[in-house]
């Protein structure tokens, strides 16, 4: 399964050097998408007298939230893939988000008065436990082919969400659960999105730790051999993933398969260099989540379709395509 990481496309570095305009062009494309996101909505921001006020209350926070959440979830997906040495792992296919939802439900049951920050902390702690449980199971299983690993994660997630649903139904919180399982940027307004800056810090830390995470991904022996504290990096990387999953679950809800699809497409085009791929993963995550949000907002105006449904449909089709493509190439 470690082959997943070492199949760098031959010739990719040369191609990269030959296209200095690629990154600026991608940035421009993402900015255009963000501009579209700022301009659409039920409220006429140019004609109405409260237009500019509405613009700052809803549109700007929403678009910023798209950037922050999209970038963080996509990069944390990349981190998980490197650390587990498996292309097909992210917060969705490891059950991590379901643990975050369980944590959130338990806070609603046991500590109803706790504030947004408290919820985020507890939800992140649960996501961390979930990711650690997943990694612990992976260490113990006999068969760890590239494909069994995400399967175990998805099943773990299904079991956790059945447990969460049961608890929620027992205490009449099913409706609340629905809003966490369905990620949506519809309720993001000024005063609610600000906590998402926490995940910007996560993205930044991933950038700073990129090299160490890459080395840790090569395995314990190799990492220790070149002087990287393997266990520490593993825990730190998992903690970053957990914070991103926990915070976005509280503020936005699930963003399924975002962390899987984006890094995979980026390394399909550019090869597997984690460090130089990171900006592309950030841009790709932002672009995909913004695009899906725009689709969700426009398809049934003035009503909204939660972004997670669009992402789930688009993401899983892309996931299947990736699987079949790799199978055809004989990589699985």
């Amino acid at each position, binding site marked *: 399964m470690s082959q997943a990481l070492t199949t760098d496309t031959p010739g990719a570095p040369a191609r990269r050097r030959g296209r200095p305009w690629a990154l600026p062009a991608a940035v421009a494309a993402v900015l255009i998408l963000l501009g579209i996101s700022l301009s659409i909505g039920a409220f006429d921001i140019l004609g109405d007298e409260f237009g500019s006020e509405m613009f700052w209350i809803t549109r700007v926070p929403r678009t910023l939230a798209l950037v922050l959440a999209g970038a963080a979830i996509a990069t944390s997906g990349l981190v998980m893939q490197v650390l587990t040495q498996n292309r097909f792992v992210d917060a969705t296919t490891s059950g991590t988000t379901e643990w975050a939802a369980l944590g959130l439900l338990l806070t609603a049951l046991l500590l109803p008065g706790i504030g947004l920050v408290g919820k985020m902390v507890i939800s992140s702690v649960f996501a961390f436990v979930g990711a650690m449980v997943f990694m612990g199971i992976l260490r113990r299983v006999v068969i760890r082919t590239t*494909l069994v690993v995400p*399967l175990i994660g998805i099943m*773990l997630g299904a079991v956790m969400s059945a447990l969460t*649903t*049961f608890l929620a*139904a*027992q205490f009449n919180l099913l409706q609340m659960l629905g809003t966490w399982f369905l990620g949506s940027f519809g309720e993001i307004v000024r005063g609610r999105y600000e906590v998402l800056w926490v995940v910007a810090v996560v993205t930044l830390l991933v950038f700073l730790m990129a090299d160490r995470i890459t080395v840790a991904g090569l395995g314990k022996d190799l990492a220790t051999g070149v002087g990287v504290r393997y266990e520490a990096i593993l825990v730190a990387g998992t903690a970053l993933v957990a914070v991103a999953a926990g915070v976005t679950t509280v503020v936005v809800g699930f963003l399924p398969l975002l962390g899987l699809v984006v890094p995979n497409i980026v390394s399909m085009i550019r090869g597997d260099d984690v460090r130089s791929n990171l900006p592309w993963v950030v841009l790709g995550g932002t672009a995909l989540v913004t695009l899906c949000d725009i689709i969700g907002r426009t398809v049934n105006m003035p009503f909204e379709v939660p972004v997670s449904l669009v992402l789930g449909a688009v993401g899983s089709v892309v996931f299947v395509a990736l*699987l079949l493509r790799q199978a055809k190439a004989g990589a*699985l």
Partner: protein
Amino acid sequence: MVPVAVTLAAATALAVAILVYANPAPPGTGAFWIIVQARLVSLGTILLVAVAQSVATVLFHTITANRILTPSILGFDALYVLSQTALVFLFGVSSTGMEGIPKIVAQSALMIVFATLLYGWLFSGRRANLHLMLLVGVVLGIAFASTASFLQRILTPSEFDVLSARLFGSISKADPAYLPIAGLIVAGILVYVWSRRRSYDVLALGRDVSVGLGLRYRREVVVSLVLVAVLVSVSATMVGPMTFYGFLVATLAYQFAPGDRHADVLPLAIGIGLVTLLAATFVLRHLFSAAGLVTVIIEFVGGTLFLIVLLRKGLR
């Protein structure tokens, strides 16, 4: 045949218990029988779902030569929900000119064709890689489910009303109008499968052996896939998707059946399916008064069992 007898005895006891336990009216009065009748609808639903899911899963295991993949885990149920949603989305509530049962039959037929094509394609030529098919099926299930919910969000409220009345059944509030026709379909398939149980024993030996022994392999597989799709759509209409129930039932049946022949496995699978659903219904409805959660509990137990099997044995 001892295990089968045990499960059937247990199922009968549980069925009687569900009918009469905590009946508020005094026994023998008119009110008593009205309540019993209402509960009979639940029993009928359980019976049909148990038979449909267990037979579908065992058949599917036979034709795909493995014991991990089940139609529900591969997204058959989700595909059913998606096809129903898509039809309402595309054609509206009543523009097809058909109403009631003929319409459902027509829609189910469409889904069955689609499922047979899709899964037939998935299983042709890629037999070698079970892991790949399993993961592709699971992810396709997610895709179907997301697309279905996406379309449901766009439906007008009245269309959604019609759709949800059709889709989101549960054991506690199944529609008695579907029982007779669903019962007929399931019974017919059961008789057919039972009459061909020896062919299925051969089919389980794989393609080469089957062809060598004079079985029309391809035809058998396609017919079985169609039957599986029909059974799953019946079950999904009655109680909605249940991902791990078939897996739970079939796995237990293989464990306790005296032999590997379908004559041994099928009756036991049905028996275990009945006991599982009846016990879950009885406990949740009468002891926890949470009848709507039967499928959730079965998901939890079945999913855990699936994980354990996956982790301990891997995939064979």
